[in-house]
C-alpha cells in the first residue's frame, strides 16, 4: 500500500480510452503531475480511425466532406453537444497535438488536406473519417482513384472476404481482383487471428515467406489491400519491407474487433505517455473516492481490493459509457458508476431504444450522459458543478451520439482538451 501523502497529484485521469489518453497527454504536456487509472482492452479503440465529425443531422444522413463546417453546423443546431463548449481553435490545437504525439510514438496518421476521407471497411462499406493510420492511407487513395487493385483474404480468418468486398465495390472499379491465400506456417491451423499474423510479420523472415505467397497474385495490380495485419510493432518497417519485396504499395483494411490497429493505438499511447512521467495504473479500477476537507480527492485504486491510495487536486472523469463502465444501466435507471452523478436520460426504459435498430434518428439512450457546465464540470442535482475540480470528458457526456454522428475520437479529444484547459484555469 502506498502512502497517500507522498502520492499527491495535480490531476487524476480516470479512464484509458481515447478521452482518458488524450486528457492525460494534454495534462502532462502542460506540466501537471498526472496519474491515470483504467483497464482498457484494445476493443475500445477498435478501428484505429479518428473521426472528427461526419454526419449531421443524423436523420437526414447528411455526410460532410468538411468536418470543420460540420462542427459549425452542430454547434449551431445542438447547443448541448460537447463541441459547443470548446472553441474551434482549441479543437484544432487538440487534434494537432494528439496526432503529433502519436506520430512521435511511431503511429503516423494521414489526412486529405483538412477534409474527411473514405476508408474501406471489411464489409466493403466506405467509412467517412478524419485521420487515417498511415497503413490504410493507400486504400483511401485507391478507393478514390480506382487503379488496378488486388484484395487479399486469408484462409481461416473469419468475417473477412475479399470477394465480398470486391463485389460490393465492383461497379466503377473494373480492375479490382481478389485472391485467397494461406498465411505462412498456418497450414495446420483451422483458424487464424489478425493479432498473431501481425506479430509474425514483425520478423523479416516471415515477411519474406509472406511475400513469396502474395507475389504470384499481384500481376497487373498497382496496389494490394489486405486485412490489417501489417505488423503489431514497427509497422513502417514492416510495410516498406513488404512493399519492396512485392513491388507495389499495400494498404490495410480495418477488421472487426479485436483489431490490430486498435492494439497499435493503445500501445502507442502507453509507450508515449510513459516517457512523460505519468503515473499509470494499468488494468486497475477506481474503487472509491473521498473528497477531503482540504479540497483534495482521495482515490482508492485496485483490481478488487485496495492496492493504492492517491491524492489529487482534480479529477478528469473519462470513464466512458456502458462498454467502458462509466455508466451502468439497471432495469429501471442509468447510473454513473463512480460518483453517482445525475445522468441525463429518457424517463423510462421504454424510451431508451427505438424498435428499428437502424432508425435514422438514432436511439435516445445514446443522448444520455452527464450534463456539464462550460468548464466541462458535471452538474449535480441542482444544476451546479458537483465538485469545484471534477471534470468530465469523452463519451460519458450527454447529447453526443458519436456512433451515428461519426465523432467518437473527435469529441473525446476535444472534450479532454476543454477539461484540461478549464482545470488549469480553475486550479490556479
Amino acid at each position, binding site marked *: 500500500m502506498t502512502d497517500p501523502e507522498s502520492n499527491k497529484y495535480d490531476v487524476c485521469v480516470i479512464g484509458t480510452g481515447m478521452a482518458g489518453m488524450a486528457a492525460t497527454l494534454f495534462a502532462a504536456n502542460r506540466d501537471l503531475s498526472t496519474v491515470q487509472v483504467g483497464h482498457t482492452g484494445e476493443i475500445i479503440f477498435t478501428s484505429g480511425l479518428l473521426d472528427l465529425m461526419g454526419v449531421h443531422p443524423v436523420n437526414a444522413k447528411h455526410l460532410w466532406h468538411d468536418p470543420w463546417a460540420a462542427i459549425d453546423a452542430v454547434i449551431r443546431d445542438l447547443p448541448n453537444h460537447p463541441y459547443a463548449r470548446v472553441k474551434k481553435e482549441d479543437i484544432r490545437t487538440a487534434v494537432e497535438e494528439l496526432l503529433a504525439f502519436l506520430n512521435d510514438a511511431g503511429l503516423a496518421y494521414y489526412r486529405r488536406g483538412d477534409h474527411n476521407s473514405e476508408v474501406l471497411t*471489411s464489409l466493403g462499406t466506405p467509412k467517412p473519417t478524419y485521420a487515417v493510420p498511415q497503413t490504410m492511407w493507400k486504400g483511401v487513395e485507391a478507393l478514390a482513384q480506382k487503379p488496378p487493385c488486388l484484395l487479399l483474404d486469408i484462409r481461416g480468418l473469419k468475417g473477412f472476404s475479399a470477394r465480398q468486398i470486391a463485389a460490393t465495390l465492383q461497379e466503377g472499379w473494373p480492375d479490382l481482383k481478389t485472391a485467397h491465400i494461406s498465411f505462412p506456417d498456418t497450414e495446420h491451423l483451422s483458424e487464424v487471428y489478425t493479432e498473431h499474423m501481425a506479430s509474425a510479420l514483425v520478423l523479416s523472415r516471415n515477411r519474406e515467406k509472406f511475400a513469396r505467397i502474395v507475389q504470384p497474385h499481384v500481376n497487373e495490380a498497382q496496389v494490394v489491400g489486405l486485412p490489417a495485419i501489417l505488423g503489431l510493432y514497427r509497422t513502417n518497417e514492416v510495410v516498406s519491407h513488404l512493399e519492396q519485396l512485392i513491388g507495389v504499395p499495400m494498404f490495410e483494411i480495418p477488421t472487426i474487433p479485436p483489431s490490430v490497429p486498435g492494439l497499435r493505438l493503445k500501445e502507442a499511447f502507453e509507450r508515449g505517455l510513459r516517457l512523460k512521467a505519468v503515473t499509470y495504473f494499468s488494468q486497475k479500477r477506481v474503487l472509491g473516492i473521498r473528497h477531503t476537507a482540504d479540497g483534495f480527492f482521495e482515490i482508492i485504486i485496485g483490481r478488487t481490493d485496495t492496492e493504492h491510495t492517491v491524492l489529487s487536486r482534480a479529477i478528469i472523469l473519462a470513464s466512458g*459509457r456502458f*462498454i467502458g463502465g462509466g455508466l451502468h444501466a439497471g*432495469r429501471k435507471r442509468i447510473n454513473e458508476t463512480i460518483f453517482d452523478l445525475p445522468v441525463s436520460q429518457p424517463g423510462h426504459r421504454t424510451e431508451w431504444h427505438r*424498435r428499428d435498430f437502424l432508425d435514422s434518428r438514432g436511439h435516445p439512450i445514446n443522448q444520455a450522459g452527464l450534463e456539464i457546465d462550460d468548464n466541462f464540470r458535471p452538474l449535480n442535482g441542482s444544476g451546479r458543478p458537483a465538485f469545484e475540480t471534477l471534470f468530465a470528458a469523452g463519451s460519458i457526456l450527454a447529447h453526443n451520439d458519436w456512433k451515428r454522428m461519426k465523432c467518437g475520437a473527435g469529441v473525446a479529444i476535444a472534450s479532454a482538451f476543454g477539461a484540461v484547459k478549464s482545470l488549469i484555469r480553475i486550479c490556479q
Partner: protein
Amino acid sequence: MNSLQTQVLIIGGGATGTGIARDLALRGVKCILAERRDINAGASGANHGLLHSGGRYVSSDPGSAIECREEAELLKRLAPQCIEDTGGLFVAVEGDDEKYVADFPQLCSQCKIPVKALDVKEARELEPELSDKLIAAYMVKDASIDPFKLSMENISQAQNLGSTLLRFTKVVGFEKNNKEIRTTRLQDIISGEEIIVEAQQVVNATGAWAGEVAALAGAHIDIIYSKGSLIVTHSRVTNRVVNRLRSSASADILVPGGTVSILGTTSIRIDDLDQVYPTVEEVDTMVDEAVKMIPALETVRYIRAYAGVRPLVGSRSASDDRSVSRGFALIDHVHDGIENFTTISGGKLTTYRLMAEKTADLVCRKLRISAPCRTRTEPLPESQPARWTEPGLAPKLWLRHHEPEDILLCECEMVPKSVVDAMVSSIREQNVQPDLRAIALRSRIGKGACQGMFCGVRVTTYLFDQGELHPEQCLTHLREFFTTRWKGQHPTLWDKQLMQSELLEALHCGFFGLEL
C-alpha cells in the same frame, strides 16, 4: 403464371399445417402446403415450448387438460427427439390463493393427470432457485418441446412421401363455383409471381390468420387475438418446468430448453396481426411478477424476447357441433356453402397431432378415402433439416467430431462451419435460397449473447464465399438480420445486454455505417 394440381392444399406452415401434411401423406394423400413466410413463422415459432402435462388446465378447462395429457404421453414416445423430458413443478408462494392450491391434486386426479405432492423443502432441494416464500409444491409430467424441430420433421416426412412445400407463398384469393373452391390464387411474395392451385380439398391451417383467409373464401369466423410475449435467459435457470400454482396470469411459467430458460407469458388483446412484438412494459411486468416464484429472475441475464398470437376462436364456432373440443376449432365450411373448405385453428402445440388427425379424418371423409390415421402409432422419423435448432446441439456435435478445418462461425452458440454447410444443403433440398434469414431460422445463430454482432458478419461472408449470396444481398441481408434480431433484443437491454448492444451499434453503425 404457374398452375399446379393436388388432392389437398394446406394453407399455413405451422405445427398444425405441417402436422396435417404428414398425417395425410401417411394415408397416401398428396398435398401442397403453402406458407406465406417460412416454416413456423406464426405462433408455432413464437410459443413457450411447453409440452403440457395438462396440469395447467385442470381447473379452467378439464377437456383440454385430458387432451394434453394424452397427447403429451404419445409424443414423448413417438417424437422423443423433439422433447426434453424435464418434468415439471407447480408451486405456490405466500399470498397465493390457498383454495386453488388445496383443490389442485383432486382436480388433477379427476383428469387422470399424475401429480405428486412435495414438501417445500424437497422442492427447493430439487430446484434451488425457488423462492424461500414457497408454500406448496407438486410434481407433474411437464416437458419441453422444440417446435422448430417438430414442424421441420413433420414437413420433411411429408415431402419424402411426395408432398410439396411452397414457402414464401401466400394465399391471396379463391375462385369458387356455386358450391366449391375451384382454384386458389397464391403469390410468391419474393418474385411477386402468381401461382394457381387446383385442389380437391382446401385446408385453412393459418392459426390466428384463419379469419382473414376464410374471409377470402367468403366464410366468416369470429376470432379474437391475444398476444403473448416471452423472454429468454442467457443460461438455464431451473432443470424442470416451473409453473405458478394459481389460475393463469402473467409470467406464470418458466420452461427450460437446452441451455436456456424461457419466461412467460403475457396475454394482451390486439387488433392488428402485423403489430406483434414484445414490449419493454411486458418484460418489466413479467420480471416483476416472476421474481416472487424465482428471485434469481431479477438478476439473470436475458438475451431476447419474442411474441406470438393465440387465436381465440369465438362463440359461433365454439358452439359449432363440429368443434371437437373447447381447445381447438375444426370448422367444416359446408355451413357457409363451401363444400371443400375446412378450417382448423386454436388449440395448442401439445395437441397439434390430434388437431391434424381430426382435420385429416374430415378431409379424408370428404375425399372418400378410408385410410386410417398412422401418426398415433408411428414414430416421427428424425431428419437432417431439423437438427440444428436445439440449443446446445451444435456444440455437442462440434465437440464430438471436431474436424481440423471446422471453425466456429458463431461463438456464443458454438455453431461451426460444418453445421452451416449442412443447413445450406438441407435448405437447398427444400428449394429455398440459403441466406442468413433461412439459416437464422434453422439454427441458434444470432440468438446468443452477442446479438449476432460477429456471427452475422461471419456467416454472411462465409455464404458469399460459398457462392450462396449475390453481392448486393450481403449488406441488405445483414441489415435485415440485425433489424429482425433487434425487435426481440430491445426490450431486454439493460446491464450486460445493454453493453453488448452498445458494442453492436458501435461496430455496425459507428464503424461499418450500416445505417447510412
